[in-house]
């Protein structure tokens, strides 16, 4: 019903809570609603008992709340949870919100912090694998080994994201980028280079989910949730038996089946592009191409403006904004595209959009299929 970004990029005159609160009011206004109408609250990464901290700040006492930590995919999963809660009458108006100032606060941890008694503390942390880049590097290396995926194909994902960012005035990085530019950036964790990695920016946003009765009072066109799915796999990456796929395969299968769509029906794809390899895995997991075929698919220009599958249309986490968790902003962009509000980056006549999140270290996935009526 409503979708809004918070302040993005570098935010020095707001707190995380004020950013989330202002975005929430803006999203609610789009739905013709106010904070007083919210009786379902869904947040992640907003501190301990996050829904309580955010609810208190907003001055609301929701009857349904959810702070499930499903990493960056939590926000797509929250659409799933919120839809069920609204559908079953356990809440009427659900608000999903998030904000981070990890750029301004330089707060992104590169090592997961676990005490020595945890399984991760015992069996993974002793080896110095930086999180999450090291984990995605392991996935990329295996994908290259099994399928012959190339550094150029990975780089093309970053180039496609940048081409979209050039069309988005709110994007952080908009200067032209070529495959050669990406390949010239320093190697971080083989085979991932600096520009295979997403940005680290401040940002956040809000999404409002409500029953269709609310649609007629909405200030802006309501968008329908027609499919949702989620899944999870491993927290300790060595417990995953296959690094060339993610839980997104299951999440996507559930969501597409519920929506009754095939990959070829999707007009706009908003994949969680924390790293270039993630996008290739998502393309294969969701069936946009064959297993092992995502590198070639990207290289064909399919992801770029005017391509076969317009993807990362905001510029994504690679070039638009990556505030620690991108999942919420994927939904905001999908809504904008379906409403025809995306300006220079608008995908013509977009009717079906997919937002696909991943979280943790290839740990969680959730897929949302949205449709314009």
């Amino acid at each position, binding site marked *: 019903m409503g979708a809004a970004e918070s302040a993005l990029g570098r935010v020095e005159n707001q707190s995380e809570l004020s950013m989330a609160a202002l975005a929430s009011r803006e999203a609610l206004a789009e739905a013709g609603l106010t904070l007083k109408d919210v009786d379902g609250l869904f947040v992640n990464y907003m501190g301990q008992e996050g829904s309580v901290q955010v609810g208190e700040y907003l001055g609301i006492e929701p009857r349904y709340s959810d702070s499930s930590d499903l990493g960056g995919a939590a926000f797509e999963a929250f659409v799933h949870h919120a839809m069920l809660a609204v559908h079953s009458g356990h809440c009427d108006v659900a608000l999903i919100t998030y904000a981070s100032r990890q750029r301004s606060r330089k707060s992104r941890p590169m090592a997961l912090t676990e005490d020595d008694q945890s399984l991760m503390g015992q069996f993974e942390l002793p080896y110095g*694998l930086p999180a999450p880049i090291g984990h995605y590097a*392991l996935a990329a290396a295996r994908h290259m080994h099994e399928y012959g995926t190339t550094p150029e194909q990975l780089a093309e994902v970053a180039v496609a994201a940048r081409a979209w960012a050039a069309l988005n005035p709110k994007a952080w990085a908009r200067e032209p980028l070529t495959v050669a530019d990406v390949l010239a950036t320093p*190697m971080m*964790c*083989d085979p991932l280079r600096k520009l295979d990695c997403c940005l680290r920016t401040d940002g956040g946003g809000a999404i409002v989910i409500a029953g269709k009765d609310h649609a007629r009072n909405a200030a802006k066109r309501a968008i329908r949730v027609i499919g949702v799915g989620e899944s999870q796999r491993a927290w300790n*990456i060595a417990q995953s038996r296959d*690094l060339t796929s993610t839980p997104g395969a299951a999440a996507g299968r559930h969501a597409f089946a519920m929506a009754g769509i095939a990959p070829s029906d999707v007009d706009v794809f908003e994949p969680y592009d924390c790293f270039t390899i993630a996008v290739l895995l998502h393309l294969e997991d969701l069936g946009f191409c064959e297993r092992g075929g995502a590198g070639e698919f990207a290289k064909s220009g399919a992801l770029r403006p005017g391509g076969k599958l317009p993807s990362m249309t905001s510029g994504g986490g690679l070039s638009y904004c990556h505030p620690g968790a991108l999942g919420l902003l994927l939904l905001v962009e999908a809504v904008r595209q379906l409403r025809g509000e995306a300006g220079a980056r608008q995908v013509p006549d977009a009717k079906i959009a997919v937002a696909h999140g991943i979280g943790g270290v290839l740990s969680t996935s959730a897929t949302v299929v949205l449709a314009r009526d």
Partner: protein
Amino acid sequence: MDPTTAPFWEAAERGELRVQRCGRCGHHQFYPRPFCLQCDAEGLDWVTVAGRGRIYSKTVVRVPLVTGFEPPYVVAIVELNEGPYLMGNVDSVDCKIGDEVVLRWQQRDHKYPVPVFAVVSPPR
């Protein structure tokens, strides 16, 4: 160490790699659990394995992102010959996926030694 992983770390101190083996289905399991994930049987045995396997995937960390680690260094997931995957460092930055490796224990700052893999031979 925690109460369920003590047999692993106590063996590590003796230079042995121990994993669980299911008496019913023969599944080798790591890390340990109170039952077999494959057939659900309880009461798994601890067995000593050779610590040989192949590199399933690896990365060379080129930048100083983790305190206490000096780049470049390799972090790999090794598929043991018995089946389980195990994370560890590899002693050669030139190692490749598919290389046969053998486990050596290395004493670091931790109380218990940790596995470091050495490349035995390149893949066929």
